[in-house]
C-alpha cells in the first residue's frame, strides 16, 4: 500500500518538475522576437495565420503566434491578462470596448508606426478610423468592417409571387411583402424581428432620423420621437403577425428559422455570408439586398481593429505588426478567405468575389450612407438597460414609447457616470 502511494507522489513530482517553462526569448533590434496575436473567430484563423507568415517573410527575425480564444471567453481572458500585465502583444479590439481600453492606457498609440509604414488612413472608411481614435491619437487601425443587409429566400419569394427586394425598396414595400410571405398554415413568416440592436433597430432608428447617443456622447436619443418610430417598425411587424413572436425566436434562433425556410426575410450582417455559403441546404436559395429606405437610407457600420499592447516586451515590433495586419497586403489575404469585409480601400472586391452566389456588393454600396455603431466610453453599461427594457416592448408587455422614454432616462444616468 505505502509503496504504491509513494510511487504516485514521485510520479506527480516528476511531472511537475519536467514540465517545460514557457516563454520565448525576447530580444531587440534584430534578435529573434516572438509576438502573440490574439483573435476570437475560428472562421478567420486560417487567414490570420497566413498574415502572420507573410509578416515573418518580410521580417525573418519575428515570429507571430496566433492565439484563438472563443469570443465568449476572449474578453474575460484579455481582462485578466491585462490586470496581470501580460496581455498578448497584438490583439483584436471592437468599437464598444475601445474607449475603456484606450482610457486605461492598455493600448499603444500607433501614429508613429502608421507614418513610418507610410500607411494611408484615408484608405479606410472614415467612421472606422474615428471609432478607434481617442483623444486625437490612433489606437487601432481598422481590420475589417460589416454592414447589414436584407437577406431573403428566393424560393419563398417566387412561391408567393412577390418581387425580389432591390435598392428601391422602402419600409412600406418591406411590410407589404412580409405580410404576403406569411403563411400561418405552413408555419412560415415574412420576416424575423428580434430585439437585436446592430442588425435590426439601430438601422431603422437611423433610417427614421433618430439617434441613439448624441454626438458629444452625453445624452441618449432613445426618447426622440424619430427613434421611437425606428423601434416601432419592428414591434409592428410582430403585432401584424408577419414575424414570429419573441418567445418563438428565443426558442429557435432567427438565423436558423431563416436558413430552414421558416422566415422569408432576415436583417443580417455581412458576416452571415460565410455561414450561409457553407450550408448546403441553402444552395441557390438565398440572396441579399440593401436595407429598405425609411425617411432616408442608413445602415450601421462596425468593424474591428488591430491594436498593440502598451506593455508589450517588444512594443515596436508589436505596433509594426498591428499596422501590417491592417495594411493592404494583409487585408487582401483576409478578403480572399471570405469571412469578413476587409477595411482597406480596394480590397473589398476580393471579398465580394469570394461568394459569387450572393449579391455581396449590396453591403459595400451602403457604406456611403453608413452610421457608426453607437458607443460611449463604457458602452456595455447602457446597452444592458436597452436589452432589458426593449425586450418588454417587443413582448408587448410595455408600450414602445413608454419603454423608450424609460430607457432614455436610464441611459442618461449611465452616461452621467462616465468620465
Amino acid at each position, binding site marked *: 500500500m505505502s509503496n504504491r502511494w509513494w510511487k504516485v507522489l514521485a510520479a506527480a513530482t516528476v511531472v511537475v518538475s519536467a514540465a*517545460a517553462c*514557457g*516563454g520565448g526569448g525576447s530580444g531587440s533590434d534584430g534578435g529573434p522576437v516572438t509576438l502573440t496575436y490574439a483573435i476570437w473567430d475560428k*472562421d478567420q484563423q486560417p487567414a490570420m495565420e497566413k498574415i502572420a507568415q507573410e509578416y515573418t517573410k518580410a521580417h525573418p527575425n519575428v515570429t507571430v503566434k496566433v492565439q484563438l480564444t472563443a*469570443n465568449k471567453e476572449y474578453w*474575460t481572458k484579455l481582462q485578466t491578462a491585462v*490586470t496581470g500585465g*501580460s496581455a498578448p502583444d497584438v490583439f483584436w479590439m471592437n468599437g464598444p470596448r475601445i474607449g475603456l481600453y484606450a482610457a486605461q492606457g492598455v493600448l499603444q498609440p500607433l501614429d508613429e508606426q502608421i507614418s513610418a509604414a507610410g500607411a494611408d488612413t484615408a484608405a479606410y472608411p472614415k467612421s472606422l478610423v474615428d471609432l478607434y481614435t481617442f483623444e486625437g491619437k490612433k489606437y487601432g487601425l481598422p481590420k475589417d468592417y460589416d454592414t447589414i443587409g436584407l437577406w431573403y429566400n428566393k424560393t419563398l419569394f417566387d412561391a408567393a409571387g412577390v418581387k425580389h427586394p432591390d435598392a428601391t425598396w422602402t419600409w412600406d414595400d418591406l411590410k407589404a411583402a412580409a405580410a404576403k410571405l406569411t403563411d400561418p398554415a405552413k408555419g412560415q413568416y415574412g420576416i424575423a424581428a428580434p430585439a437585436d440592436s446592430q442588425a435590426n433597430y439601430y438601422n431603422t432608428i437611423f433610417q427614421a432620423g433618430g439617434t441613439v447617443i448624441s454626438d458629444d456622447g452625453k445624452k441618449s436619443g432613445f426618447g426622440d420621437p424619430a427613434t421611437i418610430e425606428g423601434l416601432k417598425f419592428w414591434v409592428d411587424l410582430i403585432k401584424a403577425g408577419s414575424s414570429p413572436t419573441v418567445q418563438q425566436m428565443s426558442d429557435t434562433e432567427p438565423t436558423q428559422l431563416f*436558413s430552414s425556410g421558416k422566415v422569408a426575410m432576415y436583417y443580417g450582417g455581412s458576416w452571415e455570408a460565410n455561414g450561409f455559403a457553407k450550408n448546403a441546404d441553402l444552395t441557390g436559395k438565398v440572396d441579399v439586398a440593401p436595407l429598405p429606405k425609411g425617411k432616408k437610407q442608413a445602415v450601421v457600420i462596425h468593424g474591428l481593429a488591430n491594436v498593440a499592447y502598451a506593455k508589450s516586451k517588444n512594443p515596436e515590433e508589436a505596433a509594426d505588426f498591428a499596422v501590417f495586419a491592417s495594411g493592404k497586403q494583409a487585408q487582401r489575404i483576409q478578403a480572399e478567405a471570405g469571412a469578413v469585409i476587409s477595411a482597406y480601400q480596394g480590397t473589398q472586391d476580393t471579398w465580394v468575389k469570394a461568394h459569387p452566389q450572393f449579391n455581396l456588393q449590396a453591403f459595400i454600396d451602403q457604406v456611403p450612407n453608413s452610421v457608426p455603431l453607437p458607443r460611449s466610453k463604457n458602452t456595455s453599461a447602457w446597452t444592458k438597460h436597452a436589452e432589458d427594457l426593449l425586450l418588454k416592448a417587443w413582448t408587448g408587455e410595455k408600450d414602445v414609447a413608454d419603454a423608450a422614454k424609460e430607457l432614455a432616462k436610464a441611459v442618461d444616468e449611465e452616461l452621467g457616470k462616465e468620465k
Partner: protein
Amino acid sequence: MPERVARRTWPVHAVLVVGALVMVAPLVWEFLTSVKSFGESVRVPPTILPGTWDWSNYTKVFHSIPFGEQLLNTVLMTAGRTAGQLLLCSMAAYAFARLAFPGRDVIFMLFLSVLMVPSQLFLIPQYQIMQELGWLNSLQALIVPGVFSAFGTFLLRQFFLSLPKDLEEAAGLDGANPLRIYWHIMLPLARPGLVALGILTVLWSWNDLMWPLVVNNDPEQMTLSAGLATLKGEHFTDYPVLMAGSLLATLPVIVVFIVMQRRVLEGIAFTGSKG
C-alpha cells in the same frame, strides 16, 4: 421473483426507465448531430436521424485542434490535481481532526470561509501568482492551483472524526508517531472518503474551462475543454464538428465511469453530491 413483489416494483421501474431515457437523450442527440451535415444540424424542424451519416466530422476535429496533446494535458492535469488533493487534503484533514495545536479551530474556520467565496474571485489573484512564478502557459499552472481544496479538507476531516479512536491509541501505545498513524492506520480506513473526493476532483478537473483558458495560451498547452471552446466561431459554428469533439472528450470519462461504476455510486451516495 414472487408475483406480489413484481407487481409492486413495476411502477418504480417505469419511472426509472423514463428517467434513464431523459438522462441518455442528450448524449444520443450529441452523437446524432455529430454525424449530420452542417445544414441538417441547424434545420428547423430538426431531423432525428441524419440523412447521410457523415463521419468526416470526427476527422475534422483532429484537424481543428491538437486533440492528442490536449487529451494528454487534460489527463495529466486531472491526475496531478487528484493525486495532490488526495494527499494534501487528507494530511490537513487529519491534522484538523486529531492533532491538538493552538488555534486549530480558528484556522479551520478560516479554512472553511474559503468555501463561501465564489471561485471566480480567485481568477485574477491566482493568475498573478502564476505570472510571478513564470508559470503562465505551462502544465504546472494547470495542476498546482488545483491541488488545494477547502472542500476536500472539510470532507475528509468529517470522515476522520467519524472513525473510532481505539486503533490510533493502540498504535500510539506501540510507539507510532502521528505521521505513521496517519499513513498506516488512518488513510486505509478513510478509503471510501478518499474515493469520493477522488471522483469529485476528477470530474471537476476534466470539465474545468475557465482556468485553463485564462492561464494558458498555446493550443498545445490547453486542455480539451478549452480546446473545444475555440471551435465556436463568432458568427459561424460548425455544430457537427463541435459535437464530434465533445463526444470524443467525454468518452474517457464514460469509460472510467463504467469501469469504476460501483465506487462512483458509493462515492456519490457518501457525499450526497455529484460535483
